[in-house]
């Protein structure tokens, strides 16, 4: 069947901000879909609230709306744009839920919009547990024993039938929020209550536990002719009980014989047919009893998923692109396999390597949360690695995680590496309760003498995986202590084939990474690069997508190209603080290079990204971002330079070692980068150019710390100079607090000093992004933070252009930016954080590289900054590029962030100097207050226009909250407060209803009101990190129940302004393309393609 001609305009919904369970994989799938459909001549209307995406680049769609992903907004846009069809399967669960809601509300019918890909009925069948279970029974497939309950009472009744342990899964949520495993009635009550809240339809499913069963996933594609193919099979290293997003996974399946695999394949075909996903990709999960082979279906996602992204990268089969084309009527046999060109998309990829994915966790950011893995996803990112053996792929993946590990132990980082032996009981406990470090405890278990069988009985990790780990362990133990020179060429090659990094070999042989490298190269042991080609070399492949291994034949095409070439180092696995924003920049750099006819060579290890889409770069190397792996590729490619500015901290950390190894770094010199990062050099620099920074000092002992703090004056910001998992940064207000910090959080030692900075209380923080070619410096964006200084800039909302900074200070900011960019000889991007206190400008931090805000600023001013920066690095000037004037838009753009608090029970929701947010949204409007309001809605804070406000603020904030309360009262809100705040407000003539604190014992108290959703807005500020239980519970419940809340006065003020304006004027929505028409120069339309 050829493509449909009865539809012309297609609406695509993105997945919104990056949250746990929904990351940049949907930017990858969405951008592929946009490209694929536009290539077919369809007009695309795109809606997504996340500015840090490639899909929201104005050239990706005909109409791009960066607006909140809520039904009202979509209805407005549908009414305006009148699309013929809505493709709901590429925007993750958010896109699917939204499309389903629009269908349910009758919006799609009203405006005659057809759902393509998956119909309403298919979405319901797959997503509603009850429907799904019935459907599976109809086709004779087993599902675990289960019951749907809508209340706690029903759950307690159902458990008698199902028995413990039981898995609790809420219906209609993201990645299993609120789910968990209950082993007793108490846990059941707890998890079911949370699950009911998290479910959009207040429904949870109790499921017979298949804990310890082997878990598999199949990625399935179907077309209109009912052709069904399996793209990839995935076997989970972690058995059932750990969310698949939190599991180490391996492709293809390893321990299934053909008959067992085919049985699963047939079941998957039956599932997609029965659910009725007409076209596109689906993901189906199975569990298999390791002792009997009994198979059950766990769940199905009737859409492209995180696993589809992984499967696409693992096989080279572009699932999202093909899914988009199938949705408009093509069939699999009509579409070409891009990689081989001569074969069709109707086939099943076969691979000749092993793929391992390891999730990246961030428990260190949430010390109150237990490091435990359950059926509710906790990881924030992932890395993937490819090798010819499981051992090689696994060790590469560990190195690619960027957690300071270089393989499966033997890197000096495992306790047993350095002669520390953990108690056996601890090891057993860590094996039995899944956690983010379990893999490494397996090594400790081997060291402690546990057998494969014993470890199996504690973990239920398949013995075959354990055996392979044991091999790695044994080889490293045999090697330990042998001098490097005594290792034969054959043995060294075998070590490399097992995935041992030079770093590990250096540790084991008591040498250095560089020495191992030299010895290796002297023996002629170099990596070979193999192609990922979907077909195990059966056909000639054209796609330049490579991984390294140590084999005989090198298929690298590095030497075939006569073009100039540049390597771009990507950002690696997503983590808090380094995510999609940097991948966005890398993709722009790739595009910029290719537009100039230069080979863009991408290195990255994150399968969720657009940058690892094989048709983005000229050559793609899917490799860990370590010194060793990057330098190997550098030596293979011999490029004209390497770009380190765009991938965030990852490439920056590599910049200096690579520079010292003789690598040519493009753009700002690593020496200048070091000058900005090294505290003492940085102080000297500021002094030289006459800029101020908050008073600061270094302390090497507790006494010294007290002295320094005294000199500087409280409050002070303290942090260790060495970064240990990025935590332990704190604002302290008194000597007592400082002492407590020193005693509990860090060890102050001469070799581990702590840094003490004066903390500027209530200062206004400003973020500036600028671009410089060494001659001309142009300020790209001045962002005024909504939250005061002290909240991590990555967690702060901000507005561009600024609204509260006096012109004189704006000029000063510009001047300081010019001076700093010139002094650091910036060639490319620079980000500076300023604070304004009492009309004085302070420099907090300078980063001569692309910052997290580059995508936001680029979207806000309509200038592709990362592209321009790339061209500058190639030697072009801003004058050549026609960008010499700062853009000051007539509209306002607000960036707001989203937090993963719901995933981490027990964590307080307050903001501080430690970054905790996972993603961001953007609100654009002609008025600042409406732009802010849109950003709030997009971030999930539905600002109320009437109702009841609860106010409870710390003493310091009381004077400032009066004004806010007055405005709310005038707007008709009822104000409630606990006694202290109430009294204070009443003194200013505000009518306040007093309500008991939790600790007072009288009911109903404030928590009752919150639980009953009788509070519509909450303003609650807390001092310091240690908050009272009362305040913690209040904030936690408000967050869990989606009650809009502000935890800072500045945030509250902005919210109230927005509410006031919203009562007068309702939202209107415009496409980015329309906003850009008001700019003096539309960069996207004119300047980029030369």
């Amino acid at each position, binding site marked *: 069947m050829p493509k449909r001609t009865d539809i012309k305009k297609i609406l695509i919904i993105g997945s919104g901000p990056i949250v746990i369970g929904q990351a940049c994989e949907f930017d990858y799938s969405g951008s592929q879909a946009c490209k694929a459909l536009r290539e077919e001549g369809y007009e695309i209307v795109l809606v997504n609230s996340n500015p840090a995406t490639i899909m929201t680049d104005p050239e990706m769609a005909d109409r791009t709306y960066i607006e909140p992903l809520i039904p009202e907004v979509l209805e407005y846009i549908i009414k305006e744009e009148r699309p013929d069809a809505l493709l709901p399967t590429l925007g993750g669960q958010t896109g699917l839920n939204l499309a389903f809601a629009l269908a349910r509300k009758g919006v799609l019918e009203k405006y005659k919009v057809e759902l393509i890909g998956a119909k309403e009925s298919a979405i319901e069948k797959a997503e509603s547990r009850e429907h799904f279970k019935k459907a599976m029974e109809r086709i004779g497939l087993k599902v675990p024993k289960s019951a749907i309950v809508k209340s706690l009472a029903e759950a307690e009744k159902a458990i008698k039938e199902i028995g413990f342990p039981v898995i609790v899964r809420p219906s209609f949520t993201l990645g299993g929020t609120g789910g968990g495993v209950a082993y007793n009635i108490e846990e059941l009550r707890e998890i079911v209550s949370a699950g009911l809240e998290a479910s959009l339809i207040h429904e949870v499913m109790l499921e017979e536990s298949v804990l310890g069963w082997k878990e598999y996933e199949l990625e399935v594609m179907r077309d209109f*002719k*009912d*052709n069904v*193919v*399996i793209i990839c099979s995935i076997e989970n290293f972690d058995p059932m009980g750990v969310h698949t997003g939190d599991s180490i996974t391996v492709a*293809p*399946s*390893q*321990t*299934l*014989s*053909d*008959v*067992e*695999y*085919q049985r699963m*394949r*047939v079941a998957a075909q039956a599932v997609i047919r029965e659910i009725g996903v007409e076209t596109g990709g689906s993901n189906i999960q199975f569990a298999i009893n*390791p*002792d*009997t*082979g009994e198979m059950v279906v766990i769940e199905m996602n009737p859409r492209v998923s995180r696993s589809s992204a992984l499967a696409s990268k693992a096989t080279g089969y572009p699932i999202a692109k093909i899914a988009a084309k199938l949705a408009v009527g093509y069939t*699999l*046999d009509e579409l070409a396999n891009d990689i081989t060109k*001569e*074969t*069709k998309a*109707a*086939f*099943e*990829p*076969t*691979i*000749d*390597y*092993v793929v391992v994915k390891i999730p990246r966790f961030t428990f260190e950011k949430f010390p109150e949360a237990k490091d435990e893995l359950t059926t509710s996803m906790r990881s924030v990112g992932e890395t993937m690695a490819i090798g*010819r*053996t*499981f051992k090689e792929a696994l060790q590469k993946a560990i190195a690619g995680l960027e957690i300071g590990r270089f393989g499966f132990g033997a890197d000096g980082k495992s306790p047993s590496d350095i002669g520390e032996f953990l108690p056996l009981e601890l090891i057993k406990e860590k094996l039995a309760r899944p956690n983010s470090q379990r893999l490494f405890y397996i090594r400790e278990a081997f060291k402690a003498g546990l057998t494969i069988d014993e470890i199996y009985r504690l973990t239920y990790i398949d*013995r*075959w995986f354990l*055996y*392979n780990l044991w091999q790695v362990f044994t*080889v490293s133990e*045999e*090697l330990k202590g042998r001098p490097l020179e005594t*290792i*034969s060429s054959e*043995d060294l090659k*075998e070590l490399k084939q097992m995935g041992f990094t030079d770093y590990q070999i250096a540790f084991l042989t008591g040498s250095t990474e560089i020495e191992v490298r030299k010895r290796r190269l002297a023996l002629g042991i170099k990596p070979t690069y*193999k192609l990922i080609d979907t*077909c*195990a*070399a*059966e*056909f*000639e492949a054209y796609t330049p997508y490579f991984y390294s291994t140590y*084999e*005989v*034949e090198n298929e690298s095409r590095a030497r075939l190209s006569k073009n100039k070439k540049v390597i771009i180092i990507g950002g690696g696995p997503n983590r808090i603080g380094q995510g999609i924003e940097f991948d966005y920049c890398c993709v722009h750099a790739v595009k910029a290079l290719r537009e100039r006819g230069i080979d863009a060579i991408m290195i990255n290890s994150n399968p969720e990204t657009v940058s690892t889409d094989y048709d983005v770069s000229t050559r793609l190397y899917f490799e860990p971002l370590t010194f060793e792996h990057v330098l190997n590729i550098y030596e293979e490619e011999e490029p004209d330079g390497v770009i380190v500015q765009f991938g965030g901290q990852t490439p920056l950390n590599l910049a200096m070692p690579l520079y010292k190894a003789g690598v040519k770094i493009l753009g700002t010199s690593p020496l200048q980068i070091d000058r900005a990062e090294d505290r003492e050099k940085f102080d000297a620099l500021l002094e030289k150019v006459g800029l101020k920074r908050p008073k600061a000092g270094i302390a090497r002992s507790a006494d010294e710390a007290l002295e320094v703090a005294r000199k500087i004056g409280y409050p002070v910001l303290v942090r260790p100079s060495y970064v240990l998992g990025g935590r332990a940064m704190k604002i302290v207000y008194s000597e007592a607090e400082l002492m407590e910090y020193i005693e509990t959080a860090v060890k102050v030692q001469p070799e581990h000093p702590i840094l003490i900075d004066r903390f500027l209380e209530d200062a206004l923080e400003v973020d500036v992004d600028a671009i410089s070619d060494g001659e001309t410096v142009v300020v790209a964006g001045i962002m005024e933070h909504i939250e005061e200084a002290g909240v991590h800039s990555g967690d702060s909302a901000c507005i561009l252009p600024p609204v509260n900074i006096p012109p004189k200070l704006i000029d000063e900011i510009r001047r300081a930016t010019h001076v700093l960019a010139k002094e650091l000889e910036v060639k490319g991007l620079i980000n500076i954080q300023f604070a304004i206190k009492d009309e004085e400008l302070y420099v907090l931090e300078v980063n001569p590289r692309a910052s997290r805000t580059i995508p936001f600023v680029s979207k806000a001013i309509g200038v592709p900054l990362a592209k321009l920066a790339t061209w500058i690095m190639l030697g072009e000037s801003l004058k050549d590029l026609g960008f010499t004037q700062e853009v000051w838009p007539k509209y306002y753009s607000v960036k707001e962030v989203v937090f993963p608090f719901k995933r981490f029970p027990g964590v307080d929701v307050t903001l501080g100097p430690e970054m905790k947010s996972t993603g961001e949204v953007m609100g654009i409007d002609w008025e600042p207050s409406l732009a802010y309001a849109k950003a709030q809605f997009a971030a999930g804070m539905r600002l109320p226009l009437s109702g009841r406000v609860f106010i409870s603020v710390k003493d310091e904030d009381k004077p400032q909250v009066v004004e806010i309360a007055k405005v709310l009262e005038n707007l008709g809100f009822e104000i409630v407060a606990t006694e202290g705040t109430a009294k204070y407000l009443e003194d200013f003539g505000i009518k306040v209803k007093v309500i008991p604190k939790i600790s007072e014992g009288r009911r109903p108290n404030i928590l009752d009101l919150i639980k009953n959703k009788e509070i519509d807005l909450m303003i609650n500020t807390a001092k310091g990190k240690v908050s009272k239980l009362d305040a913690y519970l209040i904030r936690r419940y408000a967050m869990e129940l989606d009650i809009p809340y502000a935890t800072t006065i500045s945030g509250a003020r902005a919210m109230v302004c927005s509410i006031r304006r919203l009562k007068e004027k309702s939202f209107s929505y415009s496409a980015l393309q329309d906003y850009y028409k008001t700019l003096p120069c539309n960069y996207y339309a004119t300047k980029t393609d030369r």
Partner: protein
Amino acid sequence: MKKERLKALIMLEDGTHFWGYSFTGPGETFGEIVFNTGMTGYQEILTDPSYYGQIVTMTYPLIGTYGVNDEDMESARIQVAGFIVREYQPYFSNYRARRSLGDWLKEQGILGIEGVDTRALTRHIRNYGAMKGGMTTETLDPKKFLEKVKESPDYVGRDLVKFVTSPKPYYYGPEGFDFNCQSFKNKAQYRVAVLDCGLKYNQLRLMVQRGAECLVFPADTPAEKILAEDPHGIFLSNGPGDPSALPYVVETAKNLLGKRPIFGICLGHQILGQALSATTYKLRFGHRGINHPVLNLLNGRVEITSQNHGFCVRAEELPKDVIITHINLNDNTLEGIYAPDLKAFSVQYHPENAPGPWDSLYLFDSFFKLMRGEDENLFS
């Protein structure tokens, strides 16, 4: 660092060679070197008689992971001449596994080599075609071994069926094998006469599951003897080697044409094609894997199929009244034919799978339809 390993040499006829290590002890063997792209199914592949005389390289690097079980046998023994993998897995994990792959190969005297850059080997075969080769732990001088390889028997033009076909007729029915029974037991609704050119057990299993009893005949059985047992249908099995080297089987097939419905698979398809007067040719490196898309031209749908063939029937030489039912989507080669007047059809691929997808099982139903005298919607 490690225990001593037994070094091994793999040599291709053109002098290209690879080093590896034996995981089955010493040995030396010769055969046509081919690759299979299936990621699962090594036990079925090793016991598939179509691989007789061939050295099989698996493109998937880890082989042996799920061990060897008692059920997934496609014939009574290992048929390949040798086996090449990237990393042999001595430790296996599967609830059905009974022994390790290495032990099993060793027990049957088949040489297995690991530690080979199998992708490089595969690419070489892809670029230069499947060719004669050998592997050894004994003649480690490449020059000397190349001479031996050149002297080894050719694969093309040789009758290999005679080495794998059953020496005498036997019975397979609902109760399994009966090697002493040489005629139908007359219980079943469908009596299928199977001409064994190197059949795979799953073909028998699938027919019995559908209510048939099978009488298996040696490949050189004349048509009259087969017809004397009064079967409802004739099944032409798969088998090894060059189909043009089997004039006596083609002759039998010709004599059976039109007498009873006929269903042929793989070599059986090539036999039917020749019986219908077409000739065959050698593909450069054959189709061996379980992911090959085949387009069913009659219903427009794609089947993912299991394939194992190095030769192909020339479609253009078939009589006009023969319908082309299936083609390969990758290279458009002939995959299926149907002669309606003769009630005979065949496919080049393996609908019985084992290993491979179960997409094409309907073809067995088609055969049973023909035996019932129905020919409506035969291929949908």
